[in-house]
């Protein structure tokens, strides 16, 4: 036990001596560190080259350009837009000479009326206990 205490005391003394004896910094190292500071600041001032970084704007422009190319260019895109507009117009206000699409698939206006074959009073009566 006493030996352990002595050993610990020796160690504490050595630690204390080490703390009181700071490691001297070599002067050539100080000079090198300060030169590095100059170099690093010059590096920090140089802006990051934008052409090497894919930005969101550049990516978005690329997608649109690819879509335009797939459609066939600006004239083809204009034709597509006109066709879409005519389609919407015909859908909302069909000319009189065109057949009713519902009749083409076998439905008429009468078949689409809900509860046509039911008596509402009978239906409601069944739910009353």
């Amino acid at each position: 036990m006493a030996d352990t205490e002595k050993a610990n005391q020796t160690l504490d003394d050595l630690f204390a001596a080490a703390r009181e004896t700071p490691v001297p910094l070599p002067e050539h190292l100080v000079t090198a560190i300060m030169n590095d500071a100059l170099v690093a600041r010059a590096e920090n001032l140089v802006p990051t080259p934008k052409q090497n970084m894919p930005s969101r704007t550049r990516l978005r422009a690329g997608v649109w350009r690819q879509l335009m190319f797939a459609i066939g260019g600006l004239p083809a895109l204009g034709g597509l837009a006109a066709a879409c507009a005519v389609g919407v117009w015909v859908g909302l206000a069909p000319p009189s000479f065109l057949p009713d699409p519902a009749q083409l698939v076998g439905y008429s206006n009468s078949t689409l009326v809900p509860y046509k074959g039911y008596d509402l009073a009978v239906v409601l009566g069944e739910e009353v206990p």
Partner: protein
Amino acid sequence: MQKRSRTDQPDVYYNAEISKQWPPGTGALMVGEPVSGLSDDALLVLYTNGDGRAVQELTMRLSPRCFGVAMRVLGNRAEAEDVTQEAMMRLWRMAPNWQPGQAQLSTWLYRVAMNLCIDLKRRQRGGYVDLDAVPEPADTSRSAAEQMQDGARQDALQLALMQLPERQRQAVVLRHIEELTNPEIAGIMDIGVEAVESLTARGKRALAAILADRREELGYTDG
């Protein structure tokens, strides 16, 4: 990074080339205003703004501690110089991105230095102890015999430290020589506080055992 040369570099702390390119007072402070009372964070902001005095102050404030720890952990002066220079270079490079108040700059630097030491040791796998690395006593008022004994004690401590496992050595140096707190060491070594306590306790026990037989040789008497 500019590689230093021990023979080509002039022995000055603030060379003329730096002063010419980076005159004092180009930052937020006026010429002649002292920077020694500023915090590390404030000095780093000044450095980013181009104030040469901040470079000098930060270098003289932080690099000796970094160098001391690196030398204790590595046991080799040249390697400790490399680690210190690299750690300080990383400090300069990250300066524009530093968030003041989030952490202590010295703690960040210790952490970088410790990681660099680990990387270096991993590359080497079995280093050597450079007894020249142990600092000479700076106190010239002591007698030659006392200085020799101080040198022998520091050599003995360094040799004993080098016998410890790497993580124990780091923890012991940071705790007992740098006198950092356990939470600080935990942050630097990226481990828990309990792990730090365990490492330092085991390290200290191992050191005591290594040095137990050398008490009289090192001039420690029972009285």
